[in-house]
């Protein structure tokens, strides 16, 4: 029961996303293109954060002389 409700909620959120970005009017292959572009850009952003965030945080802490 909880799973089907969760699925319904997710599918409603996906519907809202389609409406807001006007993907609702586009054909399925165009939706795939746009979604894959978005997912790949998002994945690249997350990966960059993961790789560089520790260095950036260390640099900030070093600047504010919290750690030597």
């Amino acid at each position, binding site marked *: 029961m909880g799973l089907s409700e969760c699925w319904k909620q997710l599918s*409603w959120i996906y519907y809202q996303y389609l*409406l807001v*970005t006007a993907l609702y*009017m586009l054909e399925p292959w*165009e939706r795939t293109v746009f979604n894959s572009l978005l997912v790949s850009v998002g994945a690249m952003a997350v990966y960059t954060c993961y790789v560089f965030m520790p260095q950036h945080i260390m640099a900030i802490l070093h600047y504010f002389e919290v750690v030597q």
Partner: protein
Amino acid sequence: VCIKNVFSPGNGVASRPQKHEPFEQAPMYVAVMTYLGFGIVTLFGYLRDFLRAVGLEKCHLAQEREEQKDFIPLYQDFENFYTRNLYMRVRDNWNRPICSLPGPVFDLMERVSDDYNWTFRFTGKTLHNVINMGSYNYLGFAENNVDFLKTVADKVNQYGTGVCSTRQEIGNLSIHEELEGLVANFLGVESAMIYGMGFATNSMNIPALVGKGCLILSDELNHTSLILGARLSAATIRVFKHNNMHSLERMLREAVCSGQPRTHRPWKKILIMVEGIYSMEGSVVRLPEIVALKKKYKAYLYLDEAHSIGAVGPSGKGVTELFNVNPTDIDVMMGTFTKSFGAAGGYIAGKKELVDYLRSYSHSAVYATAMSPPITEQILRALKCIMGKDGTTEGLRRIHQLAENTRFFRAKLKEMGFIIYGNDDSPVVPILLYMPGKVVAFAREMLERRIGVVVVGFPATPITEARARFCLSAAHTRDMLNQVLHHLNEVGDTLCLKFSRRKYTSRPDLCAETNLELDS
């Protein structure tokens, strides 16, 4: 029938409370998302155009023959970018074929598309009893009751259906003269003239009234027929902000003081063109103030009552009755019979000299075919019904029913939290949808729930303000309205359309609201 006396004729213009006409702004994120949606569709439009140009995709549009590819292009490519890439994708929401009378409920033919709306085919099924919220059927005269239409059938027997001539040549039937007399009587003016087509009434008569050396001050949101007529006349056109009296007064002063652009000679005529009810906003013109301005600066007034004649006012006489303005103050009164009378055609009414002049000098009077006899009889019977001349109170009942429906529907919509535009008295109710994706989804969802709505988007409205326009009718029963409201509530929740940030109580506010400052 309990008639609330909100429309009681006051002692004068000043005593009547001006109804508050809010044009509520949506939150900022809505505008951002609308632009985002349009941006994405435009990008994909460029992509598809590229694919079509390269040849990877079949082009469904009109193209020149191979031998003519070197010539000057016949089909303008970029001009219909929007039509090709946005409208074509979703055009199953417009031009839906109706196979019954456009009354309060109607039947639609079901059609599907296999190639994303480039071509359609009919499945053969009919959708019955779809509630009609889009027809301009304000008083419910689009009916096919045999008793009511008996006089129309008699006239077809007497006159046939075609007139086969123009009014000026040999097409002036006695039934036309009778209708013109009745229209003049109804409006309270000296004389009137009728034409076969409402759009042509505006576009062909304005060139006869003004010419080069005249000034036209037209409202921002005027209908295309008025704009076309103004352009055809070769007069100078200046546009003032919608319903904004400060803007209009400033333009009038400047026109009277400076005169024509280079020579500074005085203008031959200054004509102010406004509409009674604006069909895309549902807002009502500020008639008393415009009449005061016109008298002060000695300008002429052209009032287009296409949507308001028969639909507003305690006895259906339009905005002049709503605001208690003397009809002789308005120089040219124009209206159409398409909306409240269930027929086709238009009229121009005013002083006898004006109408006699138009009979000989207007293009529509001289060249256009006269109005067909059954249509003329339909307007006659509708007018007699509204005026009460057929001996029943049916007309008055319908007008009151329309007013009740309007008030009820608008109050409920505001309560639910939708953003709607327009005056509380106007039977045209636009619900703002803003985003292009939601516009299309709204139309499809409502059709699935057996309600037919009209949605309008970019070229007819500003780009961020796409809307669904509901036209109420005296033929809608309370049940139908409740059903529509129930479905609207559900669809509003599913699609997140309730953008309004105001708090409305469920009691209707009957006390006079103070007239807040004019929109500047």
